[in-house]
C-alpha cells in the first residue's frame, strides 16, 4: 500500500486506495512505528473505514494501531450527526473499556518491604479472573439503575464519594441510556459481573511516579513528587458490554441491505444514526458504558478499603481520583469542520478523548491544563499521563492514543518467552505480579507490546497531547 508522508508524524492513505473511500486515511506514526504498522492489515482497515457513509475529515489511526474487528484498534472515525452512520465495530466488544488513575498520599519508601504483602491483599480483595463473579449480585431493578446512572449509582450505594464523579469523563454517565434496549442475555451476564476486573489485558497496577515533565499540570492533578504512589485500573463493561455489541452487530447485519449500504467488510455493519436500529444501539451502548463507569467506581472503593486496611484509614481516604477515560466509545460531540460547527458521532476504538485547555466539558480544576489522557503501557515498563492539546481538536476530533498496542500474537509471545519465569523476572525488577490464569502472563509480557514511550513521542510530537508524568509499575494484579 502506498502512503503519502505529510510530515514527521502524519501519513495519508490516499482516497482510491480501496474502492469507495469517501475521505483519506490519516495515520499518526513515526517511520519506525510505521514499519510495524505495515506488518498486519490494519492500514487496509483504515482505508475500509473511510468508505462509511457520512464519514468526515479522515479515517484516523493512532500510533498504537493494530488489526481489530472491522475497525482497527487505535482508530477514530467521526460521522455526520444527521446523515452519517454508527457502527458497533467502531466502539468494540468491550464498550467503555477504559482506565482510571488514582493518586495516593503514599510515596515509594512507604511501600519498602510491603509491596509483596500489598500485592497479596489486592489479589484477594479485587475480584479478577476468567469466569469469576464478583462481590455483587444485582437484581433486575438495580441493574437498570446501574445502566441509567453509571458511576452515580455506585456512589449512592456507598462506593466512593460524590467528588469522584466530577473527575470522570462525562461525569461517569452517558445520557440516553435505555435498559429497554438491552437484551435479557446481556442482563444475565452483567448481573454478577459488576465490580470485577476481568482478564486478558485488564489489570490493576500500583505505580510510582518516576518522571515529571510538567510540574504545574501534575500538581493540578494531585501528583506532587517523584516516587508518589498512584494506582491505575484498566477494565470495562465485561460480558455485559460484549453481549450488547454482539446483539447489535446482528441487528446491523440485517440493517445494511435495508438501508442500501455497501461495505467492503461485513464487520463494518452499521445503520444511519437517526434510524431506529442505530438509536437503539446508542441507547444500549450508553447503558453498557454506564455499567463500565460503575464498575471502575466499585473497584475504586475496594482499592481504598484495601489500602486503609494496610496503611490506615487516613491513607485510604486520601486516595483521590485523578481522572477516568473511556477508550472504546461513541460520543456525540460538536467539532469545527471547515470553519463550521457540526454535530458528529465520534467513534473511538482503542483511542482516548483528549480535550484541550478551556474545553467546557472539563472540570474547573483541569480547564487551565487540559483533559488528562491516561495511557497504560505493558506491565514491565511504564504508563503515561498526558493532557489534551489544541492540535487534537484540529487533527483528530479531540482524540489521542490509548496504550502500547500489541506487536506479537499470544502464541508468538508464549513461544518467545519459552520457559522464562516472568513472575520471577519482574520480581527481580521489584515488580510484584499476581495473576490467576497460568498461561496469561507470557501472553501479556512486555515483549508482546510496542514501547508506549515511542507511541507517546508521536502523539506529543503531532500536537495531540502533551506528556505530564511517567509512572512505573510496582504491583500488578491480573485476572
Amino acid at each position, binding site marked *: 500500500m502506498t502512503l503519502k508522508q505529510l510530515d514527521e508524524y502524519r501519513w495519508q492513505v490516499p482516497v482510491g486506495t480501496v474502492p469507495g473511500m469517501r475521505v483519506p486515511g490519516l495515520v499518526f506514526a513515526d517511520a519506525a512505528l510505521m514499519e510495524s504498522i505495515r506488518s498486519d492489515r490494519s492500514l487496509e482497515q483504515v482505508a475500509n473505514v473511510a468508505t462509511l457513509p457520512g464519514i468526515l475529515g479522515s479515517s484516523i489511526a493512532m500510533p498504537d494501531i*493494530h*488489526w481489530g474487528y472491522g475497525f482497527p484498534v487505535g482508530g477514530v472515525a467521526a460521522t455526520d450527526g444527521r446523515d452519517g452512520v454508527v457502527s458497533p465495530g467502531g466502539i468494540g*466488544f*468491550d464498550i467503555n473499556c477504559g482506565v482510571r488513575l488514582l493518586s495516593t498520599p503514599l510515596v515509594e519508601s512507604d511501600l519498602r518491604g510491603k509491596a509483596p504483602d500489598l500485592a497479596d491483599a489486592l489479589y484477594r480483595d479485587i475480584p479478577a479472573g*476468567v469466569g469469576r463473579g464478583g462481590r455483587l449480585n444485582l437484581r433486575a431493578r438495580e441493574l437498570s439503575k446501574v445502566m441509567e446512572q453509571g458511576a452515580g449509582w455506585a456512589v449512592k450505594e456507598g462506593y466512593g464519594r460524590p467528588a469522584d464523579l466530577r473527575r470522570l469523563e462525562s461525569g461517569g454517565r452517558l445520557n440516553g441510556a435505555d435498559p429497554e434496549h438491552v437484551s435479557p442475555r446481556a442482563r444475565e451476564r452483567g448481573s454478577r459481573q459488576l465490580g470485577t476486573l476481568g482478564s486478558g489485558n485488564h489489570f490493576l497496577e500500583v505505580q510510582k511516579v518516576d518522571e515529571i515533565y510538567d510540574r504545574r499540570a501534575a500538581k493540578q492533578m494531585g501528583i506532587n513528587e517523584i516516587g508518589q504512589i498512584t494506582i491505575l485500573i484498566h477494565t470495562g463493561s465485561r460480558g455485559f458490554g460484549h453481549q450488547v455489541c454482539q446483539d447489535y452487530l446482528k441487528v446491523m447485519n440485517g440493517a445494511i441491505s435495508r438501508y442500501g449500504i455497501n461495505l467492503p467488510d461485513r*464487520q463494518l455493519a452499521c445503520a444511519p444514526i437517526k434510524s431506529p436500529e442505530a438509536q437503539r444501539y446508542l441507547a444500549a451502548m450508553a447503558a453498557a458504558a454506564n455499567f463500565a463507569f460503575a464498575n471502575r467506581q466499585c473497584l475504586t472503593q475496594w482499592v481504598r478499603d484495601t489500602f486503609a486496611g494496610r496503611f490506615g484509614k487516613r491513607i485510604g481516604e486520601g486516595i483521590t481520583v485523578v481522572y477516568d477515560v473511556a477508550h472504546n466509545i461513541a460520543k456525540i460531540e460538536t467539532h469545527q469542520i471547515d470553519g463550521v460547527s457540526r454535530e458528529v458521532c465520534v467513534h473511538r476504538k482503542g483511542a482516548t478523548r483528549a480535550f484541550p485547555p478551556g474545553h467546557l466539558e472539563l472540570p474547573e480544576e483541569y480547564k487551565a491544563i487540559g483533559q488528562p489522557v491516561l495511557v497504560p503501557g505493558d506491565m514491565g515498563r511504564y504508563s503515561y499521563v498526558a493532557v489534551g492539546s489544541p492540535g487534537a481538536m484540529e487533527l483528530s476530533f479531540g482524540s489521542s492514543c490509548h496504550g502500547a498496542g500489541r506487536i*506479537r500474537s499470544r502464541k508468538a509471545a508464549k513461544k518467545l518467552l519459552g520457559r522464562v519465569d516472568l513472575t520471577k523476572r519482574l520480581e527481580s525488577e521489584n515488580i510484584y505480579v499476581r495473576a490467576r490464569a*497460568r498461561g*496469561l502472563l507470557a501472553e501479556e509480557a512486555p515483549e508482546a507490546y510496542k514501547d508506549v514511550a515511542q507511541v507517546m513521542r508521536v502523539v506529543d510530537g503531532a500536537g495531540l497531547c502533551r506528556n505530564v508524568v511517567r509512572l512505573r509499575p510496582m504491583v500488578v494484579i491480573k485476572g
Partner: protein
Amino acid sequence: MSPFSYFDHTADVGVEVSADTLEEIFAESGRALFSLIVDLEELDSVETECVEIEGDDEVSLLIDWLNELIFLFDARGWLFREFKVAVDGRPAGSGVRLRAECRGERESGRQLEMGLKSASYHEAGITYQGSWRARFILDV
C-alpha cells in the same frame, strides 16, 4: 492429529478445524473454543445442555453457535467437553438449523485459562473439498 489447531493473530486467537462431516465441524469448533479455557481431559461429562439455533447460512450459524457457547460459559458457568450435533434445513424455509446436546460441567469452580469476548466474522469460512474445513477468529 487433532481436528483443530490455532493460528497466529495479533490480539486474538485464530482457529482451524477439519472434519468429515459438517456436524463434526460444529462439534470440534466447540471443543476448540473450550480447549482455550480449560483442559478438556479434566472435565467430566456429568450434565447436559441442549442448544437449538438457526442461521441464514452455515457461516453465520457457526458464529452464532460459538457465541451461544460463550454466553453459556460466561453467564451460566458451563464448560463443555463433548457435543452431539445435528445440522439441517430451517423448518420454516431457507437457512439452516443446528441442534446440539452439549455435555460437561456447570459452575464447577475450575481454574480457567482465558476469557473470550466473541466469535467474529473476520476470515470466518466453511468449505468442502472432499472433507470439511472451517476457520474463525475468537476475540479474547
